[in-house]
């Protein structure tokens, strides 16, 4: 188990290393001069050169990258003009544009993304899994047909379309909810929840379609399994078969896929965040890309990648926990 974890984590580190190299290489060819952008408008060449030197852009890409690695592993310090400000490991550098520490920036943006992802998780576990279960229970009947159509409709709707339609219906026509504004949880928990409701619903319902299908097919697959026949042959009622035995078969895939989805959502749901104006990691990254803000892009990409990779490990662990037959090697 420990060996497994170590091996997976080493693999994850390798993937992240490759990821950072890739992003550095890619951004090296992206047009746009970060020094000029950071300098502001109407900078003269001398000033741009000074900024370039301060940002360390005069070094070769390799040197820059090694400095970055050094920052991650051992920390480094940056000049503010009057003093050197230490940036402790894992230091992801300073934003070219705002001079803010990227680590701080990420920590600041993470709560918004996390509250979106976790709320959506609740929605898809309730709605998605519930729908899947219900349609498995009522298989062959009209309920299942209606649910199947709804689920397919869900699969067929891009998240931003779903969000727009929800906005139109819930806010504009019915006026049930205010237009969503992100309020940090720490500031006003009640407002936070009300304002996140629509984003949660949007992302959660969008994902629900997938989970409904997953749950339904897992349940049906399990219902076709021999051990269900055993309990049927021993007089168990159909409902017991679904709720006690077949649902259990749906738990490992749902848990595993949820972990993976949650991981990639913790890295930011770009479209949902931008639609609802949630200041999360996804928007931070897109902004970073557009502003040629390499430290931000690399930092956020690494954090996103780490979430995805770790979610993969977590998914395997949860899968193994939910299904004891799975042996981790």
């Amino acid at each position, binding site marked *: 188990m420990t060996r497994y974890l170590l091996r997976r984590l080493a693999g994850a580190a390798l993937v992240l290393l490759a990821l950072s190299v890739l992003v550095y290489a890619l951004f090296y060819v992206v047009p746009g001069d970060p020094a000029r952008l950071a300098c502001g408008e109407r900078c003269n060449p001398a000033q741009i050169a000074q900024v370039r030197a301060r940002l360390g852009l005069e070094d070769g890409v390799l040197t820059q990258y090694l400095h970055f690695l050094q920052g991650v592993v051992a920390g480094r310090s940056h000049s503010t003009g009057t003093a050197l400000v230490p940036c402790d490991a894992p230091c992801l550098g300073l934003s070219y544009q705002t001079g803010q520490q990227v680590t701080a920036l990420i920590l600041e943006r993470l709560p918004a993304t996390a509250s979106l992802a976790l709320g959506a998780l609740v929605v898809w576990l309730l709605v998605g899994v519930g729908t899947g279960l219900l349609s498995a229970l009522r298989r062959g009947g009209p309920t299942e047909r209606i649910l199947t159509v709804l689920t397919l409709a869900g699969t067929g709707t891009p998240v931003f379309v779903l969000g727009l339609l929800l906005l139109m219906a819930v806010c504009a026509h019915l006026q049930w909810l205010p237009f969503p504004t992100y309020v940090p949880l720490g500031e006003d928990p009640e407002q936070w929840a009300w304002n996140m409701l629509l984003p949660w619903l949007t992302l959660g319902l969008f994902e629900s379609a997938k989970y409904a299908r997953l749950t339904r097919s897992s349940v049906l697959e399990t219902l076709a*399994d*021999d*051990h269900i*026949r*055993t*309990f*049927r*042959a*021993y*007089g*168990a*009622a159909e409902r017991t078969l679904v709720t*006690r*035995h077949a649902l*259990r*078969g749906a*738990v490992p895939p749902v848990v595993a896929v949820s972990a993976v989805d949650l991981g990639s959502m913790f890295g930011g749901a770009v479209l949902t965040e931008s639609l609802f104006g949630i200041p999360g990691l996804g928007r931070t990254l897109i902004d970073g890309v557009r502003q040629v803000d390499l430290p931000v892009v690399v930092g956020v990409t690494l954090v996103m990648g780490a979430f995805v990779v770790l979610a993969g490990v977590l998914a395997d662990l949860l899968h193994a926990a*939910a*299904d*004891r*037959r799975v042996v981790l*090697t």
Partner: protein
Amino acid sequence: MTPTADPRTTGHAPAGRPLVEVRDLTVEFDTADGTVRAVDRLSLTLDAGRALALVGESGSGKSTVAAALLGLHRGTGARVTGTVLVDGTDPAAAPPAVLRRLRGGLAAMVFQDPLSALDPYLAIGDQIAEVHRLHHPVSRRAARARAVEVLDRVGIPDAARRARSRPHEFSGGMRQRALLAMALACDPRVVVADEPTTALDVTVQAQILDLLHELRHETGTALLLVTHDVGVAAESADEVLVMRGGREVERGPVGRVLAAPAAPYTRRLLDAVPRLDGPVRPPAPPEGEPLLEAVGLRKEFGRGRSAVTAVTDASLTLRAGETLGLVGESGSGKTTLGRMLVRLLDPTGGELRYRGEEIGRLDERRLRPFRRELQLVFQDPASSLNPRRTIGDSIAEFVPRGTGGAGTRARVRDLLDRVGLDPDRLDAYPHEFSGGQRQRVGIARALAAEPRVIVCDEPVSALDVTTQAQVTALLCDLQAELGLGLVFIAHDLAVVRRVSDRVAVMRAGRIVEQGTVAEVYDTPADPYTRSLLAAVPALDPVLAAERRARRARHPELAGI
């Protein structure tokens, strides 16, 4: 064992009426290819405490009958007509509550594959407790105690602790015991066992059959045993009903039917069953040249600490015109050894010589000249042929090049004819053939390469017994005719005995005994060989009882 020995004779069945009564049962399914009549006007009766074996080859409808007893066809779209009464209850018509009482409470089913028949996510004890509570209004705790009790009864050591294990933590035999315990936990009046030992090794099979016998003796439960293996029926049943194509062929006391079969099909069936006392091959031909020699062959899978040794220190010699039988239970390494012999697997160590030349370490390119000389006939005729290619195409690939298109085609037709298939069917696809026919295609394909050595890896174990006999006969004929060296791998000692000149017995990756058929079967030197031989079911119920007694007296023969 007699009905009166049953403490619960106050059942619903009126006195004098059988416990299970089936009259004119017909079951039909609709499939994409039309209606299939799986059971055709079958009738049977089973009295309390008695044991009836339904024997038949695949597709005979025997399992369908078993399912009908518990009403398992309800809601599946199958059409069931005729009368079925289990202790007075009609499983096809009973209201759901009554049906649920019948299932498990009156008749408990023991399924074939013990791994898939148990819920993989629940502890075994909980599953048994759950089933127990379905029929007995007791507390959770009491049900769990009962589960431990029955697990202990079926011989699970340390039952209280093992009750918390999940199915995958049990061995195959233990799982089958657990299934029996589940049946036991419900106190049924009849146990319906559907191929309960088919997935098990022969020694484990013997243990389970012994246990079944013991339990029945103790509780007086009736038994309906569904099996394809006449030997199993002989071991366990009082009466036997031979089925074919959904119909009854013959019915009678087991001793009578086995000793003096009335129906021609039963006779053919019995003739086809390989026996340990059946005829052996004529004495081996004079010593031919050594074709294939293995010296200390070894195979490991994986590396480092997770490495698993599948075969170790395997040495054998195969001569032209000779058949070497390789027997062992599942996991003994016989298939791995067989595949190393034809270099489908690379040996980790040891030497492999073909006609004096070392081929164990040749790479794929240098191996190419030898490839066609060493052929393999696979166990599963369904997966060994590419379903997307005609059989003619599959065979032609093995015909040495340079024969020319027309020549190749003629050669393929020739080969098909040689293995007893219609040469005109060379453009047919594998799914258009039966299992036995496909195995013949597999043999034709091996022959097409004009090999000197053929390794047959369980070539008949997926086939029905009558087909088995035909295919083994074909192999023997071909070998004699072509002077091939044949390695015949099987788990069935009787089959190996019938075809081999010499036999090697494998256990846990090692060859534990090697010698002529006479040496190994008549005077086995290794205790493992002895226990294997002791576990083979006999076709004579009297003999079976004797051997059961002997096994009971000498647990070391069974206690593997």
